[in-house]
């Protein structure tokens, strides 16, 4: 649970965000418009002509929109957990400055996760609004995909941040992006059902937090969610977040208390 100390670190990120929030709003609107426009409407027209029974009989736009919502949350979670953390611990050393005050390493970690949560909330809300404007939502349950998208982002942010704070260079972030985030983006059921993948690869997709986030956002947006699958997906995401937090409490402490 975040403490009052973690809120102080959250406040730091807010003060810091004052410089960049405008730009982040523009990209927060632009990104869903581009994805839903190009893929949902553009590519979607072609897909819909050939029949969408394998998509569950819904339009391609309605199929991919909740998937891209979850995938965008993953990307933001990764971004927020990488460079800003390395900047704080290595380039500016503001984490070391904070560690000299009453703040504890875990407070710095939790404060940043709170800020990541806020950013996920903002961009996912914008995304859902754009989805609604595109007519890509089929059920009022879609509103519940907002917390699910946030959890999806945190399921990446918490463990990646736990690892990022141990780094001294940013080279490995590009590797993570290229070999983890982009493949997940493409193969976790975002753009086509995982059932289309070869049987050997499918279990890998089911192991990734993104697949669970995509699946649950989609079920909610299409109105097909069942209590059993909701519990399964939520449980998986929460477990990954919990593991990330426990690991991060350790790695933050080890890095700042040498």
């Amino acid at each position: 649970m975040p403490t009052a100390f973690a809120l102080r670190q959250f406040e730091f990120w807010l003060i810091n965000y004052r410089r960049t929030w405008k730009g982040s709003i523009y990209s927060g609107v632009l990104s869903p418009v581009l994805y839903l426009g190009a893929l949902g409407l553009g590519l979607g027209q072609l897909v819909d002509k050939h029949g969408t029974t394998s998509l569950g009989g819904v339009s391609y736009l309605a199929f991919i929109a909740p998937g891209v919502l979850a995938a965008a949350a993953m990307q933001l979670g990764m971004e927020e957990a990488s460079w800003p953390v390395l900047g704080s611990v290595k380039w500016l050393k503001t984490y070391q400055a904070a560690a000299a005050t009453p703040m504890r390493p875990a407070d710095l970690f939790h404060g940043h996760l709170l800020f990541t949560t806020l950013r996920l909330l903002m961009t996912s809300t914008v995304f859902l609004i754009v989805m609604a404007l595109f007519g890509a939502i089929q059920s009022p349950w879609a509103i519940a995909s907002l917390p699910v998208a946030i959890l999806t982002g945190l399921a990446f942010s918490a463990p990646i941040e736990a690892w990022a704070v141990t780094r001294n260079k940013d080279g490995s972030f590009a590797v993570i992006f290229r070999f983890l985030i982009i493949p997940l983006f493409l193969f976790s059921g975002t753009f086509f059902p995982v059932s289309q993948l070869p049987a050997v690869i499918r279990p890998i997709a089911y192991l990734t937090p993104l697949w669970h986030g995509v699946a649950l956002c989609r079920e909610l947006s299409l109105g097909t969610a069942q209590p059993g699958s909701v519990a399964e997906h939520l449980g998986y995401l929460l477990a990954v977040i919990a593991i990330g937090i426990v690991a991060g409490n350790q790695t933050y402490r080890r890095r700042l208390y040498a």
Partner: protein
Amino acid sequence: MTLVNGDPQVAAPDLDVLVRATGLTKKFGKFVAVDGVDFSLNRGEVFGILGPNGAGKSSTMRMIGCVSPASGGKLTIFGQDPGRDGPAIRARIGVVPQEDTLDTELTVLENLLIYGRYFGLPRDVIKERSAKLLDFVQLADRAADRVDPLSGGMKRRLTIARSLISDPELLLLDEPTTGLDPQARHVVWDRLYRLKQQGVTLVLTTHYMDEAEQLCDRLVVMDRGKIAAEGSPRELIERYSTSEVLELRFALADEEQAVEKLADVPVARMEPLADRVLLYTDDGDETLATVRARGLEPVTSLVRRSTLEDVFLRLTGRRLED
């Protein structure tokens, strides 16, 4: 020693001893950075840790600052245990780290605001203190500017202001003037001297002997993780050096021969360095006359007072700033 509640086992904590270290040790793997040091620090004094790079100064400071657990020995700060009471101890300490850790993307005021919030200070208190502190470190006109373009000396002064935002009882300064040009160093010294006058307890590490001599009431000389000597600058100089030092430079070709001839000049100690010879004596001019009487003609000669540099040389056989 006063007793509490008549219990002879429990001594009242001595309120004037802020830091007490006994056998304090810090190891990084097999490397022993701090090797069983003992010292105590009293309220209101300026305590220096003098030593060359790698002597264990910063490691000691980080342990006092409760951001580095000791590997052995005992350390109490304000009578409390850093392992258990870290946040409570740090709430009463101000830290000026060796490297600047300012947020260079933010403004001067924002840096102070964030730091004050870390101590849980209300915004109006931070605002009021920031104005006073920026006056104190002569940065009032830069309050709204970003930190990035400030000079090294200004950043150092801002770091000092930041460390004072919580009105600390104890201020830790790790090499506060390293990397600054002479003029900027003097401005920092002047500000630290004023803090000393105000009764703030300071601990500072340095490898500049003039810094230690000017500011410290008491200091320890550290070398290779151990404390080599302790005392006031004056005491240390009296104990480990003579009142004057005669520095002689010879032409390169003559140097070896000169050192041989100097061997029987009556001085307390002779120290041949790479570029000059130091003769420790109580009367430099008289010794210089003796040297000349032996037919030696140095290229340059200088009589000066002994400094902590001489103490360090005597204690370790090495120079401080090498």
